[in-house]
């Protein structure tokens, strides 16, 4: 019960950090900070991919509503991450997931956590930026934005994740 409460509280905190802090930080046109992948990474591995996608879509839509911008961008990007991060986690990051309590933590994932964070940030950031500005921005701009945003978001994800989703 404690673990569940702690997990839910951590997710809410990350969500609020995204809405109240990250969305208001302007670090130039090349940096887009996304913390939603941190929540989606820690959805229990035992949940089906379909339910994971629905949860991701709902969270993304909620973020869209609470963000001043184009509705549907976060929902689309979160759905893409929700579809992929389950299989990536089960097949690559932690093949021993069935023996864990269910919620991925730094302890359960181990050294692969940083890689998991980078991959999740890359998927989410790429989907978001491509949905936002593909075909009417130069290719190099989009590429640079994806790479720099992924680096910054992944770094923040690892730092915050190590604090909130440490596990016991």
């Amino acid at each position, binding site marked *: 019960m404690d673990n569940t409460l702690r997990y839910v509280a951590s997710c809410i905190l990350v969500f609020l950090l995204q809405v109240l802090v990250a969305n208001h930080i302007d670090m130039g046109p090349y940096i887009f900070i996304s913390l939603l992948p941190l929540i989606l990474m820690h959805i229990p591995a035992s949940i*089906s*991919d*379909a339910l994971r*996608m*629905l949860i991701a*879509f709902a969270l*993304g*839509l909620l973020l*869209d509503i609470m963000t001043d911008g*184009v*509705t*549907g*961008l976060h*929902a*689309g990007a979160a*759905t*893409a991450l929700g*579809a992929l991060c389950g299989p990536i986690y089960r097949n690559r990051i932690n093949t021993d997931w069935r023996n864990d309590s269910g919620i991925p933590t730094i302890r359960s994932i181990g050294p692969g956590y940083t890689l998991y964070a980078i991959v999740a940030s890359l998927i989410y950031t790429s989907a978001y930026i491509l*949905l*936002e500005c*593909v*075909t*009417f921005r130069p290719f190099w701009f989009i590429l640079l934005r994806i790479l720099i945003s992924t680096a910054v978001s992944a770094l923040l994800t690892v730092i915050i994740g190590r604090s909130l989703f440490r596990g016991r």
Partner: protein
Amino acid sequence: MRNSGFIARLGTILLFIALETVSLLMIGRSGVVQRYKIAGAFRNAQYSLWKTGTSIGHYFGYRRENTLLAEENCRLREELDAYKAAERDVPQTLSAGDYTYIAATVLKNSVNRQDNFLILNRGERDGIHTGMGVITADGVVGIVSAVDESRCRVVSFLSSGQSVSAKVSGSDAFGTLSWLGRSPYKALLTEIPAHIPVAEGDTVTTSGYSMIFPQGIPLGEVTSVSSDGISTQARVRLFQQFNALQHVYIVRINAEDEVRRLENG
């Protein structure tokens, strides 16, 4: 067991597509630029589908289209002949406006024999009879030699003994053009008086002095000239592509009966 796993995976994929579609719709509604881009992408996909469908539909209509075009060609040819006739100062026995053209399709064709022939899809019911000329825009094809109810046989120009009354353009002197018997592209123009200048590159056309072919149908181009002092012979490269004949025109003389009476005296 395997089926349920496959169905579950399929369901996940469909759910992903559905959620992304909903996201795209929301993006399209919310963002002006994105709406323009998404609408453009849908329009392009629609146009591609329509274009493919139209191409397939057109393909199945080509045969009818060709028939209609051949019939239109006949009408235009008759109109052109009528205009040409109106421009002439000196009326001739058979002016260009005295011909009617009947479009026909080649059912069978031969080019590699000494006596070649064609079978066309027109017969007695279309007003065809023996002795009618067959032409295309590229030249003379042959003469109808046999007719039944719905088809006719044409003796090809590429036959021994076949000849066409022809003249060199720019001159009124006429001679006889006949096939050389080997290549389907080579013929020989003979009996041109020696004093008539003939040069390489000159165009050879029908003279109009036969009862069969109208005047002015291009036949070929002179490739070489020889003279024995009395008459000139010219080798001619034919314009007609005998091995690619599909649509031809059968020539009917409108005042044929009158002309025959005049001929027979």
